[in-house]
């Protein structure tokens, strides 16, 4: 029963789904690290990404051009994120009230309800699947749905791009500086609200990208962002809030634990194993694997 082959298969599928979870967690943690707020509507940006992907494939581009639909969906969510930041988030930061993060929580929770109800109202409580023309692919010894493999590859490319911009571009330097001292960057002459806008856009675009990539796997419906958001937050707790390497490593860790739990314990409890890990982390390393203790504002 514990054959090497099964272990390898389980490992591969765990890593593949973990990288996609990591996208979601990265979006949450990135927005937090720049703006010091949690975007509770993250799953709804995931949902919008999946709907965009479905509509593009079903009505405009056709299944053959699914790969073109993916960056367009992510870009659409990015643009929507810019509008949301401008209209709803920026006013909170412009004249900061006493409890800024409380306001941000209320605003993003309201946005969550609005977007979810809008999706139900516009598209109905139906499930859609964007057609995929991808064949089954052999990953090592294991046959896998082409859509999953494609999602994994796209996610890796997106992560590399994200890392490259953050590490090697001038804008990445400004983003990293903002995450460490919002007052400091303003003193240097950087428009922190402009940085916020782009950071919010990038963060939600990561969720949108995950939604577009996972649309053929987890389907498209108004509340499809819920489970990925929960996993995103699990990863953030495991990896440490605000830590980008933490999000990546914890994402893969979560994918592996779910995968191994499903294969070797019981697949019915797949969503429970991650919570067990969260509890362990909270008990023994409450800051997460890579998190830092609170720092001065």
């Amino acid at each position, binding site marked *: 029963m514990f054959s090497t082959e099964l272990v390898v298969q389980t490992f591969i599928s765990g890593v593949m789904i973990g990288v996609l979870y990591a996208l979601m967690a990265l979006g949450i943690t990135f927005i937090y690290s720049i703006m010091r707020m949690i975007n509770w509507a993250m799953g709804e940006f995931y949902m919008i990404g999946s709907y965009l992907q479905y509509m593009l494939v079903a009505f405009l581009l056709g299944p053959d051009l699914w790969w073109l639909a993916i960056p367009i969906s992510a870009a659409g969510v990015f643009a929507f994120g810019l509008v949301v930041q401008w209209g709803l988030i920026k006013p909170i930061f412009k004249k900061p009230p006493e409890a800024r993060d409380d306001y941000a929580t209320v605003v993003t929770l309201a946005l969550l309800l609005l977007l979810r109800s809008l999706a139900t109202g516009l598209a109905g409580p139906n499930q859609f699947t964007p057609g995929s023309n991808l064949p089954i692919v052999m990953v090592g010894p294991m046959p896998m749905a082409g859509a999953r493999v494609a999602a994994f590859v796209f996610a890796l490319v997106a992560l590399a791009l994200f890392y490259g911009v953050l590490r090697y571009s001038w804008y990445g*330097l400004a983003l990293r500086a903002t995450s460490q001292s919002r007052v400091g*960057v303003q003193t*240097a002459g950087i*428009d922190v609200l402009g940085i916020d806008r782009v950071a919010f856009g990038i963060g939600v675009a990561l969720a949108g990208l995950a939604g577009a990539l996972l649309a053929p796997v987890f389907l498209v419906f108004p509340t499809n962002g819920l489970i990925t958001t929960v996993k995103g937050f699990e990863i953030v707790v495991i990896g440490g809030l605000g830590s980008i390497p933490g999000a990546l490593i914890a994402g893969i860790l979560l994918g592996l634990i779910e995968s191994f739990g499903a294969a070797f314990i019981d697949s019915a409890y797949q969503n429970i194993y991650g919570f067990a890990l969260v509890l362990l982390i909270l008990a023994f390393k409450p800051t997460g694997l890579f998190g830092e203790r609170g720092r001065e504002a």
Partner: protein
Amino acid sequence: MSSGQVWALETQGLRKRFGGLLATNDVSLTVAPGEIRGLIGPNGAGKTTLVNLVTGVHAPDAGDVRLAGKSLQGLGMHQIARLGLVRSFQVTRLFGNMTVRENLLTSFLARRSLHSGDGLALTDSMIELTKLGRLADTQAKKLSGGQRALLQMACGFMVPGTCYVLDEPFSGINPVIKDSIIDMIVDVNRRHGATFLIVSHEMSIVRRLCPQVTVMMEGRVAAQGSLDEVARLPEVIAGYLGKALE
């Protein structure tokens, strides 16, 4: 000085209230271009509040700040910084997880439009000037307090400003680094004609650098003149110095 003079930095009737505390009350002061002015006074006199009002951290309840004759009303911190007003903080605001080099480079790139030049070369020369070479690739959070203060100052000097507002740049710093910071101030003042407003409790340095000092007490400007003049005033001795200066 004629009444038509354009001051490098001018505050007019600045007032700021925090709850029941009137932190600055009708503060008007003028600093001439190229001057190095000291700002002294007891703790809680409103010096840092004044610095925060001048640099846009707080908006005043009343009054105005002018930089080279231009009102700063309604401008954000980054906009004021881009006009050439550079400040340092009492508690350094560095980018802790970034290296010394990255901190300097960020300060250059943020105001790149104000200064054409090679940021990397400038960074190298600043590292040499501050003798932080050994630590160039060390994260800023691992530096000592004095080294942080020095780095913060170096960041401010990466792109020459027109006016510097320094909040206690010398506190808790060893004599060697103090001298480095003083040298940098004098150098930028001489070479670029930059104006300085320096908050400090280090009377020997204030005497050395600042021909004129402004004394703040209880949110108001209490006196102004050379350090030796104001140090003879009974209210300054009673409220701040404790005894006459040597």
